[in-house]
């Protein structure tokens, strides 16, 4: 490895500032292996335990965090093989931040363009449902036959039930094939 003349290449100040300005307390960007999700899960639990949170809030933040991380991982597992892309679907980002009395748990990952529409349609549908309807839908989906490896639908409903605001999302179009998808829950 060569020593770089310009130290600026390693200067993470701007990155750290961006993270701070957004109120992010914890972030992870990189490949989502199951082992990493487990380690992050433990780290997040320890971090939250050190905060003055109720046990119920801690559980909500943790569960939304795990559902998001596993959704990114499951999507990568599904799409990773059948794409010629040089994009690494497994590489994503998760953040936990604070907004007033709530925690904001977000994830971001690359999606194939063809997968965006069904996902946003599903999220828009969930936006229109109240707590009782979400519960009914959740229970319905619990009883449905599943295809191995799929489970994202139930995760989105579960996150919607825990989020005090509707699940927010942003889609950034990268080119004709790919988008970057950000999902945010406030718990």
């Amino acid at each position, binding site marked *: 490895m060569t020593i770089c003349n310009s130290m600026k290449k390693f200067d993470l100040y701007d990155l750290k500032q961006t993270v701070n300005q957004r109120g992010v307390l914890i972030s992870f960007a990189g490949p989502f292996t199951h082992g990493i999700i*487990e380690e992050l899960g433990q780290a997040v639990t320890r971090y939250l335990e050190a905060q003055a949170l109720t*046990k119920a809030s801690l*559980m909500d933040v943790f569960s939304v965090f*795990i559902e998001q991380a596993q959704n990114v991982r499951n999507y990568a597992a599904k799409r990773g093989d059948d794409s010629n892309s040089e994009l690494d679907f497994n590489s994503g980002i998760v953040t936990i931040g604070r907004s007033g009395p709530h925690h904001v748990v977000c994830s971001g990952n690359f999606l194939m363009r063809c997968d965006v529409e069904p996902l946003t349609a599903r999220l828009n549908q969930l936006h229109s449902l109240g707590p009782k309807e979400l519960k009914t839908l959740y*229970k319905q989906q619990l009883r449905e036959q599943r295809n*191995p490896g799929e*489970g994202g639908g*139930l*995760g989105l409903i579960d996150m919607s039930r825990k989020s005090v605001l509707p699940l927010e999302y942003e889609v950034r179009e990268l080119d004709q094939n790919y988008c970057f998808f950000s999902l945010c829950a406030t718990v």
Partner: protein
Amino acid sequence: MDSLFLEKTKSSPAIAFNSNSGILEMSGESYPENSYEFYKPILLWVSRFCAHFPGEIVFNCRISYLNTGSTKSMMDIFDLFEDRFRRGLQVQVNWYCDSENERAVENAEEFMEDVSFPFVIQPLIAQQ
């Protein structure tokens, strides 16, 4: 029929299902990489056991967290218990949870709503 034992990992629970006593114990957290694959052999075991065991089955569950995939599999286990109960055979679930954690209690109550066999929410005694 053999008992079923699985070691706990960071993301999967310890399983101790005793085929002699009919006492089935589960503890830990459940968010395995693939919950469907993880629970497949467990469901198969429970299904066979429910069919042949004549005595009372007692399921003691001390799971502090279930992801949605694991929740679905837990519901599948309860469906097997429900079938057994409706055939006139005994089964009881003791669901241990922290009574100070209202979310954990709510989750337990949601399971309870969907079953007719004895399902008791038990307070978790702190253990270290």
